[in-house]
């Protein structure tokens, strides 16, 4: 394609189209960030804190995080809470691939951040960012339920600013 030196103003049609696309994206991101349906993937002690996160005292429902479906086909957020061993890695990825796009991942606990207690062990994945893209990490062994709320707020902010891993990698339909 030839590059012309002539300057031209964007037409009215282009301006409207660009504005409309931005407007639609903002509305979509607002909707996505405020109804995150999580898939619970609890393998050890962090899962107990995840139950408290969904219960009355630390109410996840007020952020739109409904523990509703609990099936990978109806979720858009996966809470990986607990140690992921090397045998479990395939099962985790199998579940993750069944989720529809866009999908977000929160890694819960020291084991999923860096290996934690099982660092340098022969049978533990040292941080699940080795096997899947992670949006937010929650440190702690196990973390307090309030930190789950914080992670969800961080994830909502990322989605609204188009900065989550799914949006960066272009996995949106």
């Amino acid at each position: 394609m030839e590059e012309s030196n002539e300057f031209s103003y964007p037409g009215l049609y282009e301006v409207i189209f660009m504005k409309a696309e931005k407007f639609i994206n903002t509305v979509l991101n607002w909707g996505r960030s405020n109804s995150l349906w999580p898939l619970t993937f609890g393998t050890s002690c962090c899962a107990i804190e995840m139950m408290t996160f969904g219960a009355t005292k630390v109410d996840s429902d007020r952020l739109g995080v409904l523990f509703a479906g609990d099936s990978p086909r109806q979720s858009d957020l996966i809470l990986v809470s607990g140690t992921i061993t090397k045998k479990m890695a395939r099962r985790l990825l199998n579940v993750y691939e069944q989720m529809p796009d866009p999908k977000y991942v929160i890694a819960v606990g020291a084991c999923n951040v860096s290996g934690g207690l099982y660092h340098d062990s022969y049978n533990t994945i040292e941080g699940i960012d080795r096997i899947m893209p992670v949006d937010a990490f929650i440190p702690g062994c196990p973390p307090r339920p309030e930190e789950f709320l914080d992670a969800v707020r961080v994830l909502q902010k990322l989605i609204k600013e188009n900065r989550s891993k799914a949006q960066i990698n272009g996995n949106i339909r």
Partner: protein
Amino acid sequence: MATLDKLKNGFKGDLEVMTNEPSFSVISIKNKKLIKKLAWQIKEEFDILYALTVVDYSPNFELNYIFSNYKNADLLILKVNITEKDFAVDSITDIFSSANWEEREAYDLFGIKFNGHPDLRRILLPEDWPGHPLRKDFKVDDEIRNWTGLDLKF
């Protein structure tokens, strides 16, 4: 223990009694090929195999079969030594069926072969995992550390 005297007469020099108390005894067998015959004899008095543990005295390994019975809750520990040259022992799965998974675990973590086992696969670790991790000479190197068993794209 009454059965111990009976066992001792049947196996003569191959059987060594290390501890002999009223409800607890430790025996060791020198010839590991006799283990099936011995297990049939033990089955008459002891009806369950509690555990099978392995001790690594490199280069030799020692298997500890822990038997018990429901009636008196007696304990019998049978020690079998295996050397590096012949790294296999006969399976006793057809005599004590709980030996099935115990032997799979010993195969998984120590690499000991059990002849005549119906389904000798790994039980805890993935099928294609390299090495046997509970041996003394096992080292966690970069190959083990980065092994995920997945072909990842990113």
